[in-house]
């Protein structure tokens, strides 16, 4: 059985926070430090820039009131793009699974609300592990007997993490961007991408390293998470190299879009040339579980027949996983 990707979509707000804006917040950061440590030039946010400047988002509840868009709306737009590319209608979707790090409601689930808006008549529920959602969803679907999966499955990962950022923190404000990604999966129909391999696992003993408090802010043990992210991503890529014939002159690596500097460490370690590394973190920031699939969705028309795409994603939980695709 092969999980085939028939279409992918993405969505993000149109407000950009650049490094000059963060410098002007006067929280002890500057563009040189950001580029050296994180490698992000701009990040997208659903928050008005004046709101961030005036309040530093000290009251996340207010953020929801002033935001230009919601995780639900972004998820819907991403799914609509993915379904259009897959040439299917929402009524044909037999299963919708969603990952949302920043829900506006904790009941009903994000999937149930998005499913109702889209007009999905099949089952809808959240499959959640924050940032590694792309690998989790594909690995989760890979567990099923082929005959038990519906004709079309839609997956979405969405988050508006900037709404939970304390902009008095010089690091957190520089990391996050808002966005959603979606992909249409089928075992009954071939698509642009065929899944060759999936993995997902976790070490919950370190779950306190990356947190969003329900009524508060994002916080993390930055150094520990950075070391974990690079180490695990390298391991995941090495495993795909060892088990499959990767040719980095033809194939592509897509990592978790957390930090360009970290991704550079990975590509240096695995000797992956720039041409074989797709990313969007420099322009959009860390879009949590949407990052890696959004990269693929944004490069959808560039995917070449025979090319392998190796995705390695890490994040909260701590959890991590990989997906290896081959383009038809």
């Amino acid at each position, binding site marked *: 059985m092969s999980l085939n990707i028939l279409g992918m979509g993405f969505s993000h707000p149109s407000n950009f926070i650049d490094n000059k804006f963060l410098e002007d917040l006067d929280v002890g950061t500057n563009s040189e430090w950001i580029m050296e440590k994180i490698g992000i030039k701009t990040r997208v946010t659903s928050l008005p820039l004046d709101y961030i400047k005036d309040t530093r988002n000290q009251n*996340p*509840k207010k953020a*929801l009131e002033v935001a230009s868009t919601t995780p639900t709306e972004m998820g819907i737009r991403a799914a609509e793009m993915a379904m259009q590319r897959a040439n299917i209608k929402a009524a044909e979707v*037999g299963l919708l699974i969603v990952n949302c*790090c*920043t*829900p*506006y*409601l*904790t*009941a*009903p*689930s*994000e*999937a*149930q*609300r998005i*499913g*109702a808006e889209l007009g*999905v*008549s*099949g*089952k*809808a*529920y*959240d*499959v*959640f*592990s*924050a940032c590694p959602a792309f690998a*989790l969803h594909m690995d*989760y679907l*890979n*567990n*099923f*007997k082929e005959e*038990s*999966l519906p004709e079309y499955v839609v997956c979405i990962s969405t988050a508006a993490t900037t709404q*939970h950022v304390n902009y008095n923190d010089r690091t957190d404000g520089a990391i996050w961007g808002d966005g959603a990604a979606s992909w249409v999966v089928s075992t009954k129909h071939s698509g642009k991408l065929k899944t060759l391999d999936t993995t*997902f*696992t*976790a*070490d*919950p*003993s370190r*779950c*306190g390293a*990356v*947190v*969003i*408090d*329900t*009524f508060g802010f994002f916080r993390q043990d930055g150094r520990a998470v950075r070391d974990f992210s690079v180490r695990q991503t390298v391991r995941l890529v090495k495993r795909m190299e060892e088990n499959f014939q990767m040719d980095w002159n033809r194939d592509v690596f897509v990592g978790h879009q957390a930090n360009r500097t970290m991704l550079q460490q990975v590509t240096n370690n695995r000797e992956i040339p720039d041409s074989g590394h797709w990313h969007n973190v420099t322009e959009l920031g860390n879009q949590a579980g949407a990052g890696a699939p959004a990269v693929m969705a944004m490069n959808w028309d560039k995917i070449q027949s025979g090319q392998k795409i190796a995705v390695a994603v890490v994040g*909260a*939980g701590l*959890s991590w996983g990989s997906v290896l695709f081959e383009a038809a």
Partner: protein
Amino acid sequence: MISILGVGASRPASSLANGIYSTLKPEYVGAGGNVDVSQAIKNTVISTTELAAAAARDAIHSAGIEAERIGLILADCATPVETIPGESQRTANLLGLKIPAYDLLAGSTSLLNALSSLKDWKEDKLPEYILYVSANSPTQRVNFNEGKEKSFFSDAAGALVISSKHRGKLCLDDVIDFAGAPELGALKINLFGHIGLDLDSFNENYKNCLIKLDKEKDKAPGVPMIISDCHPLSEENSAVNFPDQANSLGCGIFSVLKEKWESLKKK
């Protein structure tokens, strides 16, 4: 075939009123009625995750296995104290387990949703033992100063040990899937707000579900039906925990199963 080897249930030690078990300190509820829900998590006698871990340990003991043999933890929680990480990972941390863990969230139908999924997995993808945990603290989202919600909800957690490799006391015959968009207006929990219940919609949903279940029951006459909330069918064919424990967003079924566990007999 998916089998249930053990069941666990937990709830706070004391109740605010008949059937209303709460993780909240009674003095906190008495002082302000939880008008500001953001203060709730600072005023608890036990956390939702601690309830989850207690139910999990109970289920593991009930199954007669060691926790280290569990290969996967799935969980649901509609009242999380953190939106990341997931409740499965917080619970696994308290249990000291370093294994794959993620959340499957479908509100009060989360358990049936999870069982429905697991029964469709390939055999070689199923770990020897799976722990499923459900934990909810809806009273942390109740405004005790007004509204019907203060009489409707209770905090609780439940857990099951599930296996396809070992036969347990209960084997999953089938899960009757109710696909289709749920009645979204019946019950809502806004991230920063109180729980909102439209009792008429809630009851209408429940009635429709029971009608469907009743029709399916005819396919397997004599199979006991276990219902965790306040709408019993008939005494001989149902088991309830209401009014001893109010609505815990799907966790009630675990306490009912636990109560009946020893008396369950093979057909």
